[in-house]
């Protein structure tokens, strides 16, 4: 479907319109910055909803430009075959909607920021452009530009508005991710040079490259010894794995989360982590279907390690925000498990888990922010009995925790079930180990709930504000979505299905015999 109006470009760059307005504010008008920022994040939200409604749920995308939707394509740097090419399919739609949804909520959650607001909101809007751009770009160079564009505002947002150790956390985040980007860039260049022996027909166009995946598979070894597919696959994977983050590349995450301001934690966990798994879906699988099939078990193994290791580490944390950061490591493991399963259930489950983790973990970080604003600390054992003095806060936190531990009728249950089911069909033993994460998750979450909210009330917090309307406004939309998608998950699963099926077809034939029988 080609629409005449460049919806995706509009969506990507609309937030930037707010930047000059904010920067142009005079000293006395600084308080207007947040409202302009909020206004600037609304067009993408509206367009996101439009996309979600209009999106044709029959078209697969993935490997053929004809089945992508809202495609825009212009020459950008003709001499290097670089296009400005945008388009979405089932792999990206949910993530774009997620980004468009979280950004306004995060702006609202940032209303308390009282230092250099103009810079804060400008950087935030730049960040949104980078994020949406990453999900819609179909040209490798363009993708890389957006990918890097995101890093910069993130670095400043953590480094300037963060907690006490913000500089350390910001630099660690920046350098770590940059190291991944380097691998990614090398991979992209390798792809370009391998795309065709004839320099004139080399390309950075993702879908052309995907169409030529057999050319890539048979490309000559790098440096004469290292198989091309293997090296490039792992280079791309490394770039994405750091973002996910996959064990053992996850240690930037707890630091970044703990130091980042609330809204930035939400974006970090809600959107940025998904770029890693999105990259695996978008690049690794379609570009190297055969090799992906060969290393599927490795991904399942990494996923299971993420699930169990993340959960065990979470259980030992005394800082609430760190606990939730580790829970992200655990929950993103389900996505890897789903990818490694290499079947429709696993892929759909993984894609759905990305969205659900985005909404649930956003709630969790927003809730952490609420208590930190009031108590100025996050030590789980430093509270106690809060349900007595903050009943509404306790109710929302309880809801978010049960959503995170995958209670049926809430959205995460469906995606975790699909990941486990898909994983079980191909790698039953690995998956059984991963399934213990379901119990461990319940353990650390309920234990936290018990220590913070139940028992005798900590006298220090006898008088403490319950949730304010502004905070409720940020939480309610997410809660509604969590319930809605728990009861009617087909609203979302429908958008994944053709893409997931197409991926299975691409990867399938060479893989486990079960996949061939599972349509």
């Amino acid at each position, binding site marked *: 479907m080609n629409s005449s109006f460049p919806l995706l470009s509009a969506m990507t760059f609309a937030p930037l319109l707010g930047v000059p307005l904010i920067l142009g504010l005079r000293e006395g008008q600084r308080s207007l910055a947040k409202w302009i920022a909020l206004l600037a994040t609304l067009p993408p939200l509206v367009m996101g909803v439009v996309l979600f409604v209009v999106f044709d749920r029959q078209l697969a995308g993935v490997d053929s430009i004809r089945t992508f939707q809202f495609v825009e394509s212009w020459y950008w740097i003709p001499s290097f075959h670089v296009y400005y090419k945008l388009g979405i399919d089932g792999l990206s739609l949910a993530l774009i909607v997620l980004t468009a949804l979280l950004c306004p909520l995060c702006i609202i959650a940032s209303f308390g920021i009282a230092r250099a607001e103009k810079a804060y909101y400008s950087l935030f809007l730049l960040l949104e452009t980078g994020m949406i751009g990453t999900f819609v770009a179909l040209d490798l160079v363009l993708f890389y530009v957006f990918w890097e564009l995101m890093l910069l505002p993130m670095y400043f947002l953590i480094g300037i508005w963060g907690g006490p150790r913000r500089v350390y956390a910001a630099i660690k985040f920046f350098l770590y991710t940059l190291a991944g980007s380097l691998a990614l860039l090398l991979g992209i260049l390798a792809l370009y040079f391998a795309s065709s022996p004839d320099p004139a027909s080399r390309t950075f166009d993702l879908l052309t490259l995907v169409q030529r995946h057999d050319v890539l598979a048979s490309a000559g070894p790098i440096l004469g010894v290292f198989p091309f597919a293997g090296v490039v696959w792992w280079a791309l994977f490394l770039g994405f794995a750091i973002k996910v983050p996959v064990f053992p590349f996850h240690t930037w995450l707890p630091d970044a989360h703990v130091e980042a301001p609330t809204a930035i934690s939400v974006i970090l966990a809600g959107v940025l982590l998904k770029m890693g798994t999105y990259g695996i879906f978008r690049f690794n699988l379609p570009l190297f279907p055969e090799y992906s099939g060969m290393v599927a078990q490795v991904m399942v193994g990494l996923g299971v390690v993420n699930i169990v290791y993340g959960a065990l580490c979470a259980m030992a944390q005394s800082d609430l925000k760190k606990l939730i950061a580790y829970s992200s490591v655990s929950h993103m493991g389900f996505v890897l498990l789903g990818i490694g399963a290499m079947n429709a*259930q696993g892929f759909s489950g993984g894609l759905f888990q990305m969205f659900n983790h985005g909404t649930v973990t956003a709630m969790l970080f927003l809730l952490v922010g609420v208590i930190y604003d009031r108590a100025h600390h996050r030590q789980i054992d430093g509270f106690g009995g809060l349900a007595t003095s903050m009943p509404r806060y306790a109710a929302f936190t309880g809801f978010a925790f049960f959503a995170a531990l995958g209670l049926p009728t809430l959205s995460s249950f469906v995606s975790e079930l699909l990941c486990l089911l898909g994983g079980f069909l191909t790698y039953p033993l690995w998956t059984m180990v991963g399934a213990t994460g379901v119990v461990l998750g319940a353990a650390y979450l309920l234990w936290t709930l018990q220590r913070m909210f139940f*028992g005798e009330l900590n006298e220090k917090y006898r008088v403490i504000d319950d949730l304010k309307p502004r905070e409720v406004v940020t939480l309610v939309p997410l809660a509604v979505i969590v319930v809605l998608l728990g009861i009617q998950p087909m609203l979302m699963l429908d958008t994944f299905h053709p893409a997931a099926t197409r991926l299975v077809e691409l990867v399938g034939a060479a893989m486990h015999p*079960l996949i061939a029988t599972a349509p």
Partner: protein
Amino acid sequence: MIDPHTIGSLLCLIPLAPLLGATYNAFIGRRVAKSMGHLAVHGVACAAVAVSLLVSVAGFACLVSMPVEARELRQTLFSWIHVGSFDVPIELVFDPLSAVMCLVVTGIGLLIHVYSIGYMHDDPGYPRFFCYLNLFLFAMLTLVLGGSLPLVFIGWEGVGLCSFLLIGFWFAESKNAAAATKAFLVNRVGDLGFLAGMVVVFSATLRIGSPTLSFSVLRDLAPRLQDASFLGAAVPVVAAACFFFAATGKSAQIPLFVWLPDAMAGPTPVSALIHAATMVTAGVYLLCRTSFLYVMAPDVGAVVALVAGLTACFAATVALFQHDIKKVLAYSTVSQLGYMFLGCGVGAFGAGLFHVVTHAFFKALLFLGAGSVIHAMGGEQDVRQMGGLRKALPVTTATFLVGILSLGGFPLLAGFFSKDVVLWRVLASGHGFLYGLALLTSALTAFYSIRLAVLTFGGAFRGGHEREHHLHESPRSMTVPLVLLAVGCIVVGWLAGPTWLGLIDRFAAWVEPALAVMPQVHEHVDAEVEERAEIVATCVAVVVGLAGMGGAWVMFGWAPGVARALADRLPVLHGYLAGRYRSVFDDVYDRCIVRPLLAATRALATFDQKVVDGLVNGAAALIRLLSRSSGWFDGTLVDGFFQRCADLARALGRAMASVQNGRIQSYLMTLGWALAVVLLLLEFVR
């Protein structure tokens, strides 16, 4: 004549009405109650349950009017999850099995709702309580109506959630909150079994080409699953074992029963509804629902029966020594659940299910009676502080006694009939050891039942004058449910015959079409011989039960000194049995699982921080070192070289600069000299 289609399309009301009630009390009830009082809360809650009950009764009547083999109502709402071959519609099925469960759940649920009006009257969390209670009924009814495994799982986890919320209802006490967490976690361990069973069944059906998780399809497919294998074992065996493991969590059997005694921290109506009458029987229901798997896996059945027998006996021995009135009943529940599983394990699913029904009546009655006692005692639960309550609480006493006698297996009361059927079926299946165990358990049950009744209501009051003055019978809203349940205890047993009195086992006839039948192992015995044997077995059971009751009465009622003397004679043994004995499993879990796990998490977190992150920081430090040394190299050697060059250039420049001093005379002089030199040179060249 009731139209099956109409009733079928109303099925969703059974779970939805309580859900709406819960939603109402979660968001609106509290506000309306400010102007209208408690009625605005419990009125809606009770009405919601009444709607469920009415639809269930209508559905039941409709099933009765249908021919036996067609007794099933079905409502498909929408597709819940549909990904490739994995298709789970929201489908409710009302067949004889779910009908029984629905009637029990909604019927007893309604009585307990009414009872709670009085019991929770002064609690500030009144709307919250009814919200949770309604939510529980929604989950429980989804569990029993769900037409496929994932749907049952929704209910299965949902009741776990409500159990968590209600055990921790008075969350300001740490003990209650800890009990709630423990209940949910132990249940989650069991749920893992459910999940595993579900995926095993799905992958097996996928492999034979007709992927499904719907019970009705699975039941027809079952014979074809016999040959499928998973990790070397037959699929029915693996699946049956997984589901039984799940059941040990929800239905409190060894090894996962440890949460139930602690769960008594919740308000007493909750103990009656959730932790006695309904939720804890979900495991038995699951086994009945998947009975087609168990008949193909007799070995698993034997394990079920053995575990159940051991649980029944162990829990009964613990109950003998408890002083907390609710704890006695809690261990008794564990023990009685054992009987239900014992029935299922030997293939007598109908008998197990019948015990579910009778137990729901008498145990709900006992808990509500205990609640009435606690209410009168101002919150006291220790029977050592009670005694002689019969005078102040006549209705409670009378109804409690009916419940106690029913539990103890007194002839012609509900518990007697159902337990008798289970015992007989165990004997008939040829499990001599298990029969002995079950018989011993029934003696113990009779003993602790009478002990509890005597200690609570018999003798003189031991709680002091102050308290005695305040003793009072409970309000009407609490006593009416007691009386109704007591009537139930007297009546409901007759549903199942007994056949040796020439009556028909209506219950079996009703429910058995929905259950699978264990293939007959033994050669057919003459019906007349069998009937005679059954009468003998019943007589044995009666004698054993009466002996247990008599013994308790002697020790605690007739000659109260006997028990004391016995305890004094064996202080160490008695101290253990009355003390640590009941938490023997807890202690083992604490030492072997909880503490090592916590230690492991701490070790891992340290590993993560010191080693994994240490590597990252180490790499960073290494790069800093490299950059510093290359900085030195660059600054001292590379830059040094150029620095020297620059110095040289500067020196030269300085030397040259002296020439450019800006004085026109010296320039002219230099020019003159230069001109002279050039001319001279030219002269030479020429």
